[in-house]
C-alpha cells in the first residue's frame, strides 16, 4: 500500500510539471458590476414596448385601410392599403428581432413574415375558399401573403382591382382574414409585453439559459443571421452557387425589399447599442472585451456601420439589382456576414452566456 502512495505522489508531482497553456494576464470576462437591470429596462422602455406599440398602431391602420378597400374597391383605396401595408411591414422590421418572451412563445415571426410567400398555395386556398392560419408552414399568410394579394395578383392595378370586383368574393375574404390574423397576433404580443412580461423580463438577471441576457444575445445574433440568409443570401445566390432568385426577396411584389433591409439593419444596431442608453455595447466595454487588440464593442459597432453604409448605397429594389448584377447585394451580404462571428461567437463567450438557440438534446460531460 505504501508503494501506491508513492505512485500517487509521483503522479501528482509529474503532473504539475506539465507544460500548461499560459497566456498573458487578461481581463476576467464573467465577473463584473454591470447593471443588467438598467440595460434591460432601457431596451424594454425605449425599443421593445414602443416598437410593439408602433407596430400595433400601424397594423390597426392597415386593418382600417383594408376594410375601406373592401367596401370600396378602387385605385385610391388600393393605394392607401398598400401604403399602410408598407408602413406596417417596416415597423415589423424593428421588432422582428425581439423573438423571445411573448413573441417567441407564439412564433410571431413565422406567422407574420415567412417568405417568399407561396402564391400557388394562396391561389388554391382562394379557389377552394379554405385555409388554416393556425399554421405558418404553408407560407400563405402574414405580410408576404398580403404582398402577393395586394401587389402581385396581376400585372396591372386594373387587373388586380378586377379580381376583387368581378370574380367571387374569395379574394376579399382572404385579404380580410390575413389582415385580421396579423392584427390579433400583434395585439396579443403587445398586450402581454405591456401588462405582464416587461417586469418579468427586466428582473430576469444572470447568465443562465433563459435569462434576459441570454435571450437578447441569442435573439440579436439569430435575427442578424436571418437578415444575412433570407433577405440577402438566398436571393443573391450566395447560398446557391451564384444562381440568383430575385423573386425570393422580401416584399418582392411591392418592391420594398430595400427599405425593409435598411430598417432591419438599423434596428439591429439600435438593439445592440440600446440607442443612447445602456446596451450590449456598454456591457462589452465594461468588461474590456478585446478582439485582435481592438475593443470588441467597437468592432461590432463598426461592422454594423459598414453594413448599414453599404446598404444605404442601394436605391432600387433588391430584386431588380440582383436581376442585373447581384454584386452590390453580395457586398452587403459580406458586410453582414463579417459581424456574425463577433455577434454569435465572441459576444456570448465573453458575456459567459450559452448560445441557446442551438439546443442541447443530450447529456454533456
Amino acid at each position: 500500500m505504501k508503494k501506491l502512495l508513492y505512485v500517487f505522489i509521483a503522479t501528482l508531482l509529474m503532473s504539475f510539471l506539465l507544460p500548461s497553456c499560459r497566456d498573458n494576464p487578461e481581463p476576467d470576462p464573467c465577473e463584473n458590476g454591470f447593471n443588467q437591470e438598467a440595460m434591460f429596462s432601457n431596451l424594454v422602455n425605449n425599443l421593445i414596448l414602443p416598437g410593439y406599440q408602433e407596430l400595433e398602431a400601424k397594423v390597426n391602420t392597415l386593418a382600417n385601410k383594408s376594410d375601406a378597400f373592401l367596401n370600396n374597391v378602387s385605385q385610391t383605396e388600393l393605394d392607401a392599403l398598400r401604403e399602410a401595408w408598407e408602413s406596417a411591414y417596416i415597423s415589423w422590421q424593428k421588432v422582428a428581432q425581439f423573438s423571445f418572451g411573448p413573441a417567441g412563445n407564439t412564433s410571431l415571426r413565422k406567422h407574420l413574415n415567412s417568405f417568399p410567400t407561396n402564391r400557388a398555395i394562396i391561389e388554391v386556398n382562394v379557389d377552394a375558399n379554405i385555409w388554416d392560419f393556425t399554421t405558418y408552414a404553408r407560407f400563405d399568410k402574414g405580410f408576404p401573403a398580403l404582398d402577393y394579394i395586394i401587389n402581385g395578383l396581376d400585372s396591372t392595378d386594373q387587373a388586380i382591382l378586377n379580381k376583387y370586383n368581378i370574380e367571387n368574393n374569395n379574394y376579399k375574404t382572404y385579404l380580410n382574414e390575413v389582415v385580421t390574423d396579423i392584427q390579433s397576433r400583434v395585439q396579443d404580443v403587445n398586450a402581454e409585453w405591456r401588462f405582464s412580461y416587461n417586469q418579468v423580463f427586466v428582473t430576469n438577471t444572470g447568465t443562465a439559459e433563459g435569462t434576459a441576457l441570454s435571450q437578447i444575445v441569442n435573439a440579436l445574433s439569430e435575427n442578424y443571421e436571418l437578415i444575412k440568409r433570407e433577405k440577402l443570401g438566398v436571393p443573391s445566390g450566395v447560398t446557391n452557387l451564384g444562381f440568383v432568385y430575385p423573386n425570393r426577396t422580401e416584399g418582392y411584389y411591392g418592391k420594398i425589399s430595400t427599405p425593409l433591409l435598411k430598417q432591419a439593419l438599423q434596428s439591429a444596431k439600435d438593439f445592440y447599442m440600446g440607442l443612447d442608453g445602456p446596451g450590449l455595447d456598454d456591457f462589452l466595454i465594461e468588461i474590456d472585451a478585446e478582439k485582435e487588440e481592438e475593443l470588441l464593442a467597437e468592432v461590432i459597432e463598426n461592422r454594423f456601420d459598414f453594413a448599414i453604409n453599404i446598404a444605404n448605397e442601394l436605391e432600387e429594389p433588391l430584386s431588380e439589382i440582383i436581376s442585373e448584377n447581384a454584386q452590390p447585394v453580395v457586398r452587403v451580404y459580406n458586410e453582414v456576414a463579417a459581424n456574425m462571428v463577433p455577434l454569435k461567437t465572441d459576444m456570448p463567450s465573453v458575456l459567459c452566456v450559452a448560445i441557446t438557440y442551438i439546443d442541447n438534446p443530450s447529456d454533456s460531460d
Partner: protein
Amino acid sequence: MNNYIENKILKSWFQPIRIAPLISFRIFFGLLMAWGMIRFIQNGWIEKLYVEPKFFFKYYGFEWVPVPDETGLYILVYTILVSALFIALGFFYRLSAIIFFGSFTWLELMDATNYLNHYYLVCLFAFWLIFVPANRAFSLDAFIFKNIKRSHVPAWSIYIFIFQMVLVYTCAGIAKLNYDWLFRAMPLGIWLPEHTDIPVLGYFFQFKWTAYIFSWGGAIYDLSIGWLLLFSKMRPWAYVAVVVFHLMTWMLFNIGLFPIIMIGSTLIFFSADFHERLLGYIGYKSSTTESHFSPSKLGQQILLKGILIYMIIQVVLPFRHWLYPGNVLWTEEGYRFSWRVMLVEKSGSATFHIHDRKNNRSSEIINGQYLTRFQEKQMSIQPDFMIQFAKHLKKTYKNKVEKPEITVDAHVAINGRTSRRFIDSTINLAEQRDNFLTKKWILSYK
C-alpha cells in the same frame, strides 16, 4: 527473474477473493443501465439523436457502422434494456453481457457527435463484464445451474474495475492541471454563476473565489480520490467525498448518469464484508462452504497478457495528445477517450464554402440543411468532423459541381475569451484525409 515476477503477479491476480463486491457491481450496473435506457427513450433521444439527423459523424475506423431505421433503433435500445436487466438478474449472464456490450457499443458508434466519456466508460465496463464470473452467486444462473455457484472468484475480476476507476479519476485530475482551470477558474467561472438560484450554495456562486475553490477542490479530488479509496482507513471518508462531489456535479451540470455511475461504481473499492452486509438487505447469504475456481496455468497466462495489454493501452491513450503539437483543448487532437470531463467551455462557428473553380462559381453552405443544431455545434469545434462534413458536401454536390473545393471559415472561442480563427481557410477540406497524423491545417492558438 521474469518468471518470478510473472508468478508473483499471477498469484496475486488469481488468488481467490470473495465474490460479493462483484455481485453488487453486476446488479448495480445492470439496473442503472436499464434505467438509463428508459430515460433515453422517454427523453425522445432516439428520435432527436438518431432519427432526425440525415447525416452522422463517425469515429475513425468505424465509418461502416450503420444506423438502423426507427423501428430498428427501438429494437436495439430495448435489446440493451433487456440485456441490462438480465445482467442485473444474472440470467444467461455471459450471453447477456455480450449482447449488452455489442448493442450498447453499436449505439455509441453510430454518431460520434454524441460522444460522452461516461458512455465510453460504460463500454469498457461492459467489455470486462463479459469475462468476469459475476454470475457465480446470487443470480438466476446460479439458481438454475447450481453447479456453477462459487463463493470466491479470481481477484483480477474485481481489480480490473478498481484499476479502471483509479485511472479515470487520475486522468480527469491531470487534465484539470492547466492554466485556465487553475489560474482563471475557467470554465467553472462561467458555469457556477448560472446556478445562483440554487438555495444557500447558489448565493456563493456569484463570487469568483467560489469558482477558484471549486476548481482547485475538483482537481485535488480527481487526482487523489482513486488512490484514497484504496486505503481501508481512508475509504469511508473518501466515499463521503465521492458522494458529496458527485451529488454536487449532478445538481450543477447536465451530466445525466455520470454521477450515479461513479457513486455506484466506487463501491467496488469496499471490502467483501461490507458488500455481504449490503447485499444482505436484499437477501444475499454468503455461502458457508468455500469454493472457487481458477483457470489453467495457460489460461491464466493468456488472460494476464490480455489484461496487461489492456492496461497499457488505457494508461497511454489519455496522454497521446503529447504527440501532437499545440494545446489539446484547442486542437481536439487526442481529446476523446482521455477522461477530459467538463473541462472547457467552447463554442464555434464554421461556415463552409463550396467552390467550382472551372465555372468560377461558389456557394456558402447552410449547415442546418444537413446537420441538426447539436451536430453543428459539435462539428464547429472538432476538425475531424469538418473533414467528414466536407466529404459529405462533396458527395451531395457531385452532380452540380465537378471537382468541388470545400473550404471553411471556422472560429472558436474558449473559456470566456473572444474567438480565434481555427482552421486554415484556404485548405480544401474535401481532399484531406482523416488519420492519426497531426492536421497541419489546424491553426495554432494565437
